[in-house]
């Protein structure tokens, strides 16, 4: 557990960068998915954004 926390601390910048990409990229295809009425794809893309936010919460 301590090792995991240390890993998160040491790689804070990379993890934040990854989280930012996970938050900012999916909304683009999300717009087109909404126009096409592809609800399944939208939920999948929202899950990616959620993942990005969870990643941010984990980083101390």
């Amino acid at each position, binding site marked *: 557990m301590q090792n995991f926390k240390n890993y998160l601390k040491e790689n804070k910048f990379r993890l934040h960068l990854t989280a930012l990409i996970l938050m*900012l990229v999916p909304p683009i295809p999300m717009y087109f998915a909404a126009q096409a009425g592809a609800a399944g794809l939208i939920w999948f893309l929202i899950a990616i954004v959620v993942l990005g936010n969870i990643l941010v919460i984990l980083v101390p």
Partner: protein
Amino acid sequence: MNFFLAFIPIALILILMVGFRWGAARSGGIGYLSALLIAILAFGAGAGLLAYSHTKALLLTIDVLFVIWAAFLLYRVADEAGAITTIGQSLPHLTADKGMQALIIGWVFASFLQGVGGFGVPVAVIAPILVGLGFTPLQAVVIPSLGHGWAVTFGSLGSSFIALMASTGLPAEVLAPPAALFLSLAGPLTGFFVAHAADGIQAVRRLAIPILILGFVMSLTQFIVATSGLWNIAAFCAGMAGLLVSIPLARRYHGQEINNGALDRRALLIAVSGYVVLILVTLSVQLIPQVKSFLGQVILQVDFPETQTVLGYITPAGPGREIAPFRHAGAILTVSSLIAYLIYRRANLYEAGAPRRIITGMVTRVMSSSVSIASMVAMAVIMQNSGMTDTLARGLASSMGWAYPIIAPWIGALGAFMTGSNTNSNVIFGALQLRTAQLLGYSAAIILGAQTAGAALASILAPTKIVVGASTAGMAGKEGDVLRKLLAYTAVTLVFISLLAMISVWFDLW
């Protein structure tokens, strides 16, 4: 029930940042997740609504991050050249009084910067200067935050006021007088708060006269200019008038003489040139119509269809955030940074490898802030489109009834806190405040004046702004400390605006 559910994301952010001292990034993540869950489970937000909300949030996030990244770039360009240090070392020659330094830089200069730029720039620019002057990082963020709030509505060359007019359909002649009066009266109060934050109650007593003089000059200027139809440059003129009055006042209140050696005027001139460039570029873009229209030819905008929740809350169809990339505040800052870099390089202020250090320093420090802004903007847009924000505002309005003028500025404040912007608060709540005022029989001008004044003064509490300030002052991750410090001051100014609104209604001033 829905009111309390809608309040949960905001409450969580407040509790985590203030109570548990979490950073804005982690708190924003929790706020986003809670807003998303509540929007889906309690407010009936479907896939389509959430998809469009995320896309709208992306546009808003780009809009905000462009400014923040560019502001950091200008800061890094100046800092790498030693300009921040030079300005910091030079100011004590004008006045060694800590309180007076805070007033001139953190109040007057911050108001001026808000007038010409805004968008979080005053805090981002001034916080590192104050750190260089020996203020603690916490003071360095709190002082300019307090100092620029009163200038927000008529700052940024009037963008927040334009939003208020657009969302209500009322003309400037109706809206400007109460808004200008409320904010102008709050101006001197923020000056006292700046002095208090800098050096305690002693500074307030010692500097009461210069605060009143500066406050009177800046407030009167803003009021006269705003009510004369030039509302787009009211805060800019107020800041300029304040700077002119500051010089003789600083000589009068110079504090204890200190031996700092001779003032190197040439070095100071070169150091401030980066910020002079920012002012010149901003004024050129905003005040020269040909330049403004030429740079505004390219516009990024996405059209969104009408969305509806299961509960029936409708968000009308319309265009999303309009981004004009070449006349954007971020573009102005980027161009200013490049010109400033060339000036500093010509003056031989850079050592080898400076460009790389500038870029890496900027990217490293801005990343955490960017993540938190992305989360919180998404949270705010989801809350807005799912009807959570509307539920909050209606709940506040219906529970207050006759005392609505008291709560009006707090609704504006809520919007500014959530969205990080006076402009966005006016967009979200302008029409609602207008309708509620009409239903309750109050003057729309007074209620909307209270809305924008509350939003302006509370915009300093917005986590996005605090994150920017905290990052530039080197206290990223400690945003909760800043928020806690600002809360008390802001509560007093909001109570003050509530009283002004109530008095205005009683005496039927507008």
